[in-house]
């Protein structure tokens, strides 16, 4: 199991890197020590009474020395407060949480697929897969060119909904095109993004018989498996629901009903 901790961590920097997108770096040797790609942290975005009640979950985007990096979109009050952090501020973090991506399976090429801010966990994953000596092809979809962020990724292909950068269309269509043009012996998809994208991807992976692992989101209260809030339906009969925070966030596309 994880050796998770709850810590006050010093913010190193918090910078806007694309439209409504921020890169937050904070110091936590303890979390860095045990973090693996696909895991997440759960952050108190403000002191009690000065912001929303619940913590907010974010994928670990990269680790470097003793630093954890997060990439996030400002979508509501919690992410708005988080984006206001400055060097010298402290944030209350629990992590690392959840099960990492299963990176050690039997495949040659890793197809990394992200929609929007789903790109967040990919830099950490990329770095790790390179160690395993895997070939990496990355596909990222955004609404428009203003959102594009591809740092620390390998062999990136971009899709935008409005065609303002790269392929004009969604990222699953882009991946399908690529799969039609290339013939893989053994590939594995690692994906993160909105549910509608993950559904389409599950469908594609099935048609193409490619193993596919999805990093899910889910409304969370605790993030550590005690509230039973973040249920996702399983496909097998053993137990009806899995917990995104404890059994995931990474699941095989064949394991869950989205």
């Amino acid at each position, binding site marked *: 199991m*994880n*050796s*998770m*901790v*709850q810590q006050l961590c010093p913010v190193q920097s918090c910078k806007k890197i694309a439209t409504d997108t921020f890169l937050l770096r904070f110091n936590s040797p303890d979390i860095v020590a045990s973090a693996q790609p696909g895991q997440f942290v759960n952050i*108190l975005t403000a002191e*009690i009474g000065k912001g*929303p*009640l*619940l*913590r907010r979950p974010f994928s670990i985007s990269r680790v470097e020395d003793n630093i954890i990096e997060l990439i996030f979109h400002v979508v509501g009050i919690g992410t708005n407060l988080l984006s206001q952090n400055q060097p010298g501020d402290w944030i209350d973090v*629990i992590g690392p949480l959840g099960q990492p991506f299963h990176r050690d399976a039997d495949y040659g090429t890793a197809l990394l697929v992200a929609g929007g801010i789903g790109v967040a966990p990919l830099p950490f994953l990329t770095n790790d897969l390179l160690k395993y000596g895997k070939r990496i092809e990355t596909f990222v979809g955004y609404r428009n060119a203003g959102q594009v962020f591809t740092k620390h990724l390998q062999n990136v292909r971009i899709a935008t909904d409005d065609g303002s950068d790269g392929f004009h269309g969604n990222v699953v269509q882009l991946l399908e095109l690529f799969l039609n043009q290339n013939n893989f012996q053994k590939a594995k998809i690692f994906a993160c993004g909105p549910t509608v994208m993950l559904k389409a991807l599950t469908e594609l992976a099935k048609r193409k018989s490619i193993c596919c692992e999805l990093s899910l989101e*889910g*409304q*969370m*209260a*605790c*993030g*550590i*498996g*005690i*509230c*039973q*809030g*973040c*249920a*996702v*339906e399983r496909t097998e009969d053993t*137990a*009806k*629901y899995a917990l995104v925070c*404890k059994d995931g966030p990474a699941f095989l596309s064949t394991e869950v009903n989205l």
Partner: protein
Amino acid sequence: MTTLSIGSGIKTSFTLRGVEFKNRVFVASGTFGYGDEIHDLVDVNRLGGIFTKSLSWKPRSGNPPQRIVETASGMLNSIGLANIGVQTFIEQKLIYLRTFNTHIIVNIAASSLKEFCDVLSLLEGQDGIVGYEVNVSCPNVKEGGMNFGTDCKMTAEITSHLRKLTNKPLIIKLTPNVTHISEIARSAESAGADAVSVINTLVGMAVDIKTRKPKLSTVTGGLSGPAIKPVALAKVYEVAKAVKIPIFGIGGIASTEDAIEFLLVGAAAVQIGTMNFIDPAISVKIADGFENYARENKISDIGTLVGALDADVKFSVIQSWL
């Protein structure tokens, strides 16, 4: 379990039907799992005790997602009492729980009187359980889904049947979604309950205006967290005026100060719920907070705070014009 008072000389412990609890701070059912996932983040041995997630006879998979909605200073949940079932609990969790140096009280939920009795009977044979908390905020399948805990007779019936089955502390956990919670509390008391827990969650809902669907799959759910603290305090106060048995005060407790409010209005002990999610160490901080408060105020026994509210008796809960 012998450290009943701490080195400071302050008495933190209390006794319920012969069971001594090391202090008056507990974690509430459903907000601490079975103590195994969270023990990295909090020293469970520092607690007065752990109330387990509600257990039913068979495992329950729970409600479909979405099960959680955040609200202003609160949250709605519709977990659907997802639990592993009493048999699996005994086989898989209890052994581990026994290793804790704190008391385990098993919370029981059921959809019939028989199920309540079956679950308790099965647990009676087991070591490591000091008592039971009975979640009567469940639909009675026989009575067309009517909530047990909204009815004095049904509450009394469950209590008296369970009373016959156990000699351990029997605690009835009341729902706040009633006109007169004191009447339900009195039924439980007369039927032999050793204590009542006050309160379970308030019925609430939230709507996604984009999809026009309820945010929770079950339409309504249970509201908890700091938002409900004022309601919970008023319910504990009402119950304290009506019964002589001890009360576990629950609802929105987020600090030592909050917890002391509950003691003053009449709670013998407190349970921390939702705030475990936000700060897993909160319950131990409150246990420490009680001692610090006692020290600063030269109180030798935390128990002297229970019901020590200095209130003008001419006003009662129902009579004041709001």
